């Protein structure tokens, strides 16, 4: 009531005499001049420098080995074979040899890499149905139109539908360690536990089985056109890694950001007595089941073995970027110090 009364009369429309409406708010003026920012600059340079050095030292301790096996050794034959799509059904395997000079200490990660493969192409990224891979029954039989033209094969729905699933990387690798000429030890790789927790447990679910076998759950669907086996058969030995929750599939379905990328294939199982400390130095071979054709997009395939740090794989860019930034800040700080020294030490000569 009192307020309403205040609002009447000729002065009713006068704005309140508040600090905000009268623009009298107490304000801090960040007067950015040489003398005020110099300490900040030196501090920032120091912090960046320390961080850069720390990152550099960390990265130096990592080890990485990359093998482009596209046409390496006897894989060349397979490469030629895969040029012709009519031999797609034929299996082809090859062997790649390499040696490690320095032991890989700690967890060793086995990646496969692809080059010039645009998983981030807009129409490619569109071509998937998250609801189907979430295990929704209606979507299983009735995939989203986003998946076209990989939604149905002759009227039968494809599971999993879409271009992303259709183009799934299907080379497989077996790593073998040769401690001596005669002895061979297969290197055990963990092929589970590679994915994000949320992907494995929430985003990708198999259709409800109701005590049926997985194959029965996928009844009435067809495998993607380029696949050699149906989705429920991806890992015949482990039903918790088969169907939509197959980890290779999940990893593949996370489209890579760049055309050159790597995806996790397996982690060294350090429970095995020979590899508790990582990969020892010596000779290794990789048996490759060579299925994925890359010549259509002038791509390359590679295998990457690496150890990781707390901030990711072997990447020298970040520490160097920190060091460069630090030196730039230092340079600026020095320039500003000179300017401050020469001109505005006490603001006196600002006056004229």
């Amino acid at each position, binding site marked *: 009531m009192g307020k309403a009364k205040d609002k009447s009369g000729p002065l009713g429309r006068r704005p309140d005499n508040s600090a905000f409406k009268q623009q009298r708010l107490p304000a801090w003026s960040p007067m950015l001049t040489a003398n005020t920012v110099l300490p900040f600059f030196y501090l920032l340079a120091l912090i960046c420098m320390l961080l850069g050095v720390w990152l550099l030292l960390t990265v130096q301790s990592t080890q990485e080995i990359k093998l482009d096996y596209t046409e390496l050794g006897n894989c060349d034959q397979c490469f030629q074979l895969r040029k012709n799509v009519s031999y797609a059904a034929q299996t082809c395997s090859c062997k790649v040899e390499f040696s490690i000079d320095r032991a890989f200490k700690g967890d060793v990660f086995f990646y496969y890499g692809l080059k010039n493969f645009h998983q981030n192409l807009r129409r490619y990224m569109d071509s998937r149905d998250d609801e189907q891979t979430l295990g929704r029954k209606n979507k299983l039989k009735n995939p989203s139109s986003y998946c076209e033209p990989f939604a149905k094969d002759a009227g039968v729905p494809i599971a999993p539908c879409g271009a992303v699933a259709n183009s799934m990387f299907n080379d497989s690798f077996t790593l073998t360690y040769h401690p001596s000429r005669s002895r061979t030890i297969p290197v055990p790789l963990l092929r589970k536990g590679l994915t994000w927790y949320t992907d494995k447990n929430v985003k990708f679910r198999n259709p409800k089985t109701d005590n049926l076998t997985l194959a029965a759950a996928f009844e009435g669907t067809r495998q993607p056109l380029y696949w050699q086996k149906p989705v429920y058969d991806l890992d015949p030995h482990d039903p918790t890694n088969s169907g939509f929750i197959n980890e290779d599939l999940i990893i593949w379905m996370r489209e*890579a950001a760049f055309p050159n990328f790597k995806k996790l294939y397996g982690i060294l199982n350090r429970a095995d007595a020979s590899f508790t400390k990582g990969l020892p130095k010596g000779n290794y071979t990789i048996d490759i089941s060579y299925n994925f054709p890359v010549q259509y997009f002038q791509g390359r395939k590679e295998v990457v073995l690496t150890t990781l740090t707390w901030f990711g794989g072997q990447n020298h860019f970040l520490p160097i970027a920190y060091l460069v930034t630090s030196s730039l800040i230092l340079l600026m700080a020095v320039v500003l110090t000179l300017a401050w020294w020469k001109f505005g030490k006490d603001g006196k000569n600002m006056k004229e």
Partner: protein
Amino acid sequence: MVKAAKDVVPDPELVRKLSCLSSSALHLKGSSSASLSSLELTYITDFFLALAICNSVVVSSPSQPRHMVPEAQAPLKSLEEIKLMFQRLSFYSFSPPQIKGSPRSFTSKLFTRGKTSSFTFNTPPNNSTDGSDPALECSQDTCKLKTKVDLPDRRDREDSAAMSSGEDLENLMEIKADDDGVKQNLEGMGGDGESEEDIDDELLYEAESPDEAALVHAARAYHCTLRGRSAESLLVDLPGIGSLVVQLLHILPFDSNRKRMSVVVRHPVTGQVVVYTKGADSVIMDLAETQKGSEQAQEIYSHIREQTQKHLDTYAREGLRTLCIAKKVLEEEEYEVWLKRQLLAESSIENQEELLLDSAQRLETDLTLLGCTGIVDRLQEDVPETIEALQEAGIKVWILTGDKQETAINIANACKLLRSSDRLLSANCGSRDACGALLEELLSEVQHEEEREESSLDSTSSFILVIDGRTLEWALQEELKGSFLELSCKCKAVICCRSTPLQKSKVVQLIRDKIGVMTLAVGDGANDVSMIQVADVGIGISGQEGMQAVMSSDFAISRFKHLKKLLLVHGHWCYHRLANMILYFIYKNVMYVNLLFWYQFFCGYSGSVMINSWVLILFNLVFTSAPPLIYGILDQDTPADTLMKLPELYGASRTTKVYIPFMFWINMLDAFYQSLVCFFLPYFALAGSDAGTLSFGSPINTSALFIILLHQVIESNTLTWIHMLVLVLSAALYFGFVQLYSAFCVVCSHPTNLFGVETLQITQPLFYIICTLTTVAALLPRILFRVLFNSLHSSAPLRSAQRDEAAAERYRQRMKLWNLKHSGASSLQVHADNPGLEPIEDEVVS
């Protein structure tokens, strides 16, 4: 305003004469012919009656707001009203003047006596009404008697009735809002007029223009009080006669062509039809040129006219607003004839305006001059300081006024537009050719002077062009426009006097279009409306001249002095805020959208995005929408007091120094750099890794948000808690949204399904390492630019701010001294020069 308008101090001599004459009229009662003094009394009474009724003033009182119309009051409350009833009855029933006299005087006597004892002083003159009637008739029709020559010149000098300023509205409003204030004021007034009753003090006059109200108040000071107004009649108290009902026959309202207004009334005393005309001195003097009657009377009359003209000139020189009052007595037949034509004109459908004008002009002829008035037009406070500050800020000030040339020059003098060293160039001429020649002549004079000054390196004097309405009419014509503009550009200030509203707007339009400057028009009256509308910025001063100017303006202020703050502080801020906010907006969008652009090189130019589509949508809409607005509302590049102290700081915004191509391109360059950094640092950090598209977009988007927000912190001149709150909220909102979105939305926004991405990202050190590096690296050039800019090439505002900081104490002392000196000097000058003048309307051209 109430105080100002009512503060009429009656001329004691005139009051004495009036009362003396009133009482002497009593003794003259019954004499065969009107004496010299009764004729003078007639004139004076007529003059004040005209002042009181020749207007459209509405009377109201606080207890009875609006029209205090006697007829409208159904329940009769007081004797006053009963008296009115009687009077009206008597008036209508006994219309012939011969019979009507005595009953009316009887009633008025009766009721005035019954009413209050304070009226005793006025009672005797009541009896004189009968006696003076023949005298009045005689004086007006035959005019055989020698009148005292200076009689009609009795001026109404309202020495302190300064109120045309029209900008006193604030006061008025304050008083209206506070009834007690009014009462106090009025009670204070009541003490002056001893014959006035308490109820008189309740009268409030609401006039279209303050001049009218001033005149009514002036008449009241001489006990000629307007008590009420209805559609058909007016109630007037006359000195020595008492309350009279004046039958109002017609009002011919004011228009700017005729420059006068008239009322046609039936004179309450004589019963004749009388026309009272009030208007601009030149017009009335022309209309009242000759007087019918004997040679002697004509001689006297022409003498009177001469005297009046002299007085008018004196008033104008003193800066008073002059008006002339005249009357005309109509014969009944004459009136009948005119009435027919007037009614015809009123009822006609075609050309009604022309017919009405014609009819009015036919009526307003052969007027008898009654006198003239001079109204003090008090200058508002701080006008000279304001104009000085505006000129220091580099604004060219023009005065466009309807006043006479002398008045206008006086006003210019009073508001320090005109200094003693300035040279006045007057342009008055009668024909187009003469005008052209005159302009050329003045131009060559100015050029000559300039050359002389250049050679002598002494440029102290500057030119002020004074041009009157008639010359302006020629000067605004196509052929002479050019030389007029050239001349006015060379002058420090231009004063256009006697200009019509149309001319004002034409002048503004001419300047705006031809010189290509920003024009600002300030005015308070209805005659400034067209000018205010034409100008780029129209400012209305709310005041007694009504609300038309305010309603047609872009900004309304209550006092002229507020113009200084409006322009120097708020104008300055507004420009800086707008310019900086627009630059920031453009920067923000270029920077953000470029991130998506860079990604196209890596996704086969397919239009893919690495950021979730909802985040993309909300980024501009929510996450970074409030900070630029707050920046645009609250930023103050220079403190208000500094801006007020140093008007020259306004120059930066006047000459548009902030929003220039250089600043725009600097911002674009910075936006490009930042987007490059913001995209490519994460790119190189993640190239060849197993990062997914959205995992790549996450650090980019986060650092883009921080860069954009911190960029604003760097750019802001002032930071308040609101800035802080908004910045923190923006960031919090972003994180809150993406976290919740990626935690709960499993199959949302295909194909950029964010599920699980952001919740994973904030657990990874790499995310923070990338974001920190990107933000720091992106903001480095901007901060360096700012620091170097502020340290080396510090702008005038910053310099003054630093000066404040560096030698705060000394500076404050000096400023205090300076202020003291200035305020003392200026206030002295205002009062010494001209205690009562006011710039009606100024046109400020920047």
